[in-house]
């Protein structure tokens, strides 16, 4: 790779080589039993150059084709975007642990056992449930070199449990599920199993939906699907540069309920999304995005930061494209003051939402969220009374998060990329067919 960089340096003012290797081993369960074991190995190399002030890039999965990368990047740079940045020098990176040697040591046999035991626990109580699941371990290595002296590499381990259950009665279908991820082996399956059992337990009865403007409780998982997507899109430096974000000109202004704080923090150790530096070699930092309802920052990679005359927030991610783009890494929504249990207990009549179908389809940039309630329950007098079906919710973050927001006092992990408490919102429209409400 040093050779590739040297070759690129000769024809360009700036050059950067980014490469990853990954080995992933999933054990996949279907119809209550182990169905397939996989090993996925991949290598990927991306070259980005700045030549005559313009960006050119190319990438390949083939180590025997590195020679053609320079040529292709040069060809692309002829038409390329003018660079608004200089490549960084080697910075001082925070200490972020993302590798646990124990993960590499866990055996396939143990992974299979973990997966089967999750399924067996659920089926011991609900024998009619058909389970799917997965136990996956992964090891990856991320490397970056640039012509300004960045030379860095980190190793990351990942472990994931997921469990899904399907229950069919007539043409009535219920889908439940939960998952957990870490950089370390997860040997305690109880949280995932308990969550799935809770979802099944509450779904024993099907009831009518609450009235149209009832309060809606979003579990931490539903917060991820419904709220985080439109919030993050509006705070993306790219949306700022393009002029599409509704938050343009709102920096320093109070837009949301003062209970709402949101930051991006890739420095939390042992979370699979965390990292000491981003995909351009910029040190990771904790970036406040919303502080007590006030817009604090947009997040940037180098190019968008250059366009916006701002500084990169260390938010460059490549997602398999040779050109990075700004993305959050690990978002955290600040905790509120209502005990998580009381959020449901305080609702007189309302909807509890675990998952939405089609949440990312409406006018996300405009702040809209909503969709079909894939898994949701009715709350009456503080108790979950049964499952709600054939119901849609629709809301807008700029209205629903403006005031009277209720936030739980204990945040929960949703995968590797979000830490949030459950919330209760007003101002969401609930539409439903079916029995009178």
């Amino acid at each position, binding site marked *: 790779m040093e050779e590739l960089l040297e070759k690129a340096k000769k024809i360009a003012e700036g050059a950067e080589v980014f490469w990853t290797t990954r080995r992933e081993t999933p054990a996949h369960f279907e119809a209550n039993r182990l*169905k397939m074991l996989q090993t996925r190995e*991949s290598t990927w190399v991306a070259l980005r150059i700045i030549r005559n002030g313009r960006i050119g890039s190319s990438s390949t999965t083939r180590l025997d084709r590195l020679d053609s990368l320079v040529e292709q990047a040069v*060809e692309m740079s002829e038409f390329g*975007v003018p660079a608004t940045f200089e490549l960084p020098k080697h910075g001082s990176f925070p200490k972020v642990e993302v590798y646990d040697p124990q993960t590499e040591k866990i055996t396939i046999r143990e992974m299979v056992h973990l997966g089967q035991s999750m399924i067996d626990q659920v089926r011991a109580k609900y024998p009619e449930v058909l389970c799917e699941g997965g136990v996956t371990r992964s090891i990856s290595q991320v490397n970056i070199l640039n012509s300004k002296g960045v030379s860095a590499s980190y190793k990351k381990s990942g472990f994931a449990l997921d469990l899904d259950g399907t229950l069919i009665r007539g*043409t009535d279908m219920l889908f439940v599920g939960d998952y957990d991820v870490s950089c370390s082996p997860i040997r305690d399956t109880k949280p995932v199993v308990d969550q799935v059992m809770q979802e099944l337990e509450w779904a024993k009865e099907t009831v009518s939906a609450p009235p149209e403007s009832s309060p809606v409780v979003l579990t931490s998982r539903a917060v991820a699907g419904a709220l985080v997507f439109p919030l993050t899109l509006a705070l993306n430096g790219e949306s700022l540069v393009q002029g599409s974000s509704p938050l343009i000109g709102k920096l320093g202004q109070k837009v949301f309920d003062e209970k709402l704080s949101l930051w991006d923090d890739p420095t939390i150790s042992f979370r699979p999304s965390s990292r000491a530096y981003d995909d351009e070699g910029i040190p990771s930092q904790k970036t406040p995005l919303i502080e007590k309802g006030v817009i604090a920052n947009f997040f940037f990679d180098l190019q968008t930061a250059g366009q916006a005359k701002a500084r990169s927030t260390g938010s460059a991610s490549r997602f398999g494209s040779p050109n990075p783009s700004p993305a959050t890494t690990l978002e955290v929504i600040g905790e509120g003051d209502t005990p998580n249990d009381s959020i449901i207990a305080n609702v007189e009549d309302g909807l509890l939402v675990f998952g939405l179908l089609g949440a990312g389809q409406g006018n996300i940039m405009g702040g809209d969220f909503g969709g079909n309630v894939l898994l949701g329950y009715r709350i009456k007098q503080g108790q979950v009374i049964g499952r709600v079906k054939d119901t849609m919710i629709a809301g807008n973050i700029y209205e629903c998060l403006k005031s009277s927001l209720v936030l739980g006092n204990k945040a929960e992990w949703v995968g590797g990329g979000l830490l949030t408490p459950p919330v209760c919102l007003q101002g969401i429209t609930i539409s439903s067919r079916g029995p009178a409400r």
Partner: protein
Amino acid sequence: MEISKDEITRAFKGHRADFIEMRLEESESTRIVYRGKELEEIGRSTGGGGCVRALVKGGWGFVSFTTPENLRDKVKLAVQQARLVGKEASLLAPVEPVVDTEPPVVKKDPRAVPLADKKQLLDEYNEVMWGTPGIQTSTIAYSDGLRKITYASSIGSYIEQTKVDLSLRVNAVAKNDGEVQQSGVSIGSRGDFGVVEGLHDKVKEIAEKAVLLLSAPRAKGGEFTVILDPILAGVFTHEAFGHLSESDFLYENPRMKEIMVLGRRFGGKHLNIVDGAAVPGFRASYKYDDEGVPSTRSDLIKEGVLVGRLHSRETAGKMGEKPTGNARALDYRFEPIVRMTNTFIEPGTMTFKDLIADVKEGIYARNWYGGMTSMEMFTFSAGEAYAIRNGRVQELLRPVVLSGNLFTTLENIDAIANDLEMNQGGGCGKGGQIPLPVSNGSPHIRIRKCLVGGR
């Protein structure tokens, strides 16, 4: 990666597996993206890799790689993994071994169009876009790619297929006082650059539509008579019904099998739904699927009654039916799973005017953002909507999200027009494999009592 047929055949030998298959793939792609007025990205990728799948006593092992060396070791690992899984009998629907070479189907080959010409065309579209007052930002994303896939299996199949695919997404965003609206189109083709040329008027229409939506009122939420245009009806067919006909959801699920029992009535006599990669000329038309099975054309619903479904070799074998050539993998990183190809509602006899004539109050929903399904329930988003009153299309409304229950909604399709159109812009996702090129289509259809999400 010049790997000979002999080398692959040798790698298969002596592993004591019930079945082994390998796919090797070489690919190249070009991507040009404009965001706002400026070019955001122009890049080229090359590469590829391969995978081995092995079956032992009903259990699967799968190994994927980007370095196609030591193929014998990869096969060995896949077989070892399969052996750890297998505890029952292997059962695959029998197929004849195939030895064939399928050249790319190209009309105007995108690879023969110089990069400068592609950029020039997109520059023109971007100028048209920005010539429209009120546009806040836009995305124009073009990509084309070639994949050369070699398939070999232990039953003696050896198939080389080369596929050229291209797509264009144009999206316009208009903004006013913090309100944002958008409009867009997706176009795709299996190897004809011509479909993305000459779209200047279309781009203008999209830009103007986004601006117009800013002043459009919101639709009321609730149950309405809804008329879907061919694009949205095609998405509906794919999302609401198509996924349920994928047999991997059924074959080990006795209760789902009961629901999807052949002969069950799903809709009126006018309802006919078809899927097939053997239907020529569309984005997902191909000769062999990723298990080396020849493609077919499958009637799924005939005169309102369920008559067929989509299969891989395993689902067909376990259900005692014939394979349909619907096992598809996004690329070498993934195992083939049951997928749709070109899916459509067959045309009826009515005209659009007939459909709308007796609608007192309803919604005419056009175009799409996307759709999702969880078998019984589905959600799909229209790109634009119009009010219908007293048999006439009236004012433009904000985009609506339509949602419903498959079983009642198919029953509630009470009229089908005669104007079938196919949409080639689709990219389907399932099991982490996205976007898989698909096409879907329909004539205009009318649905009674359709749930519309609005505010």
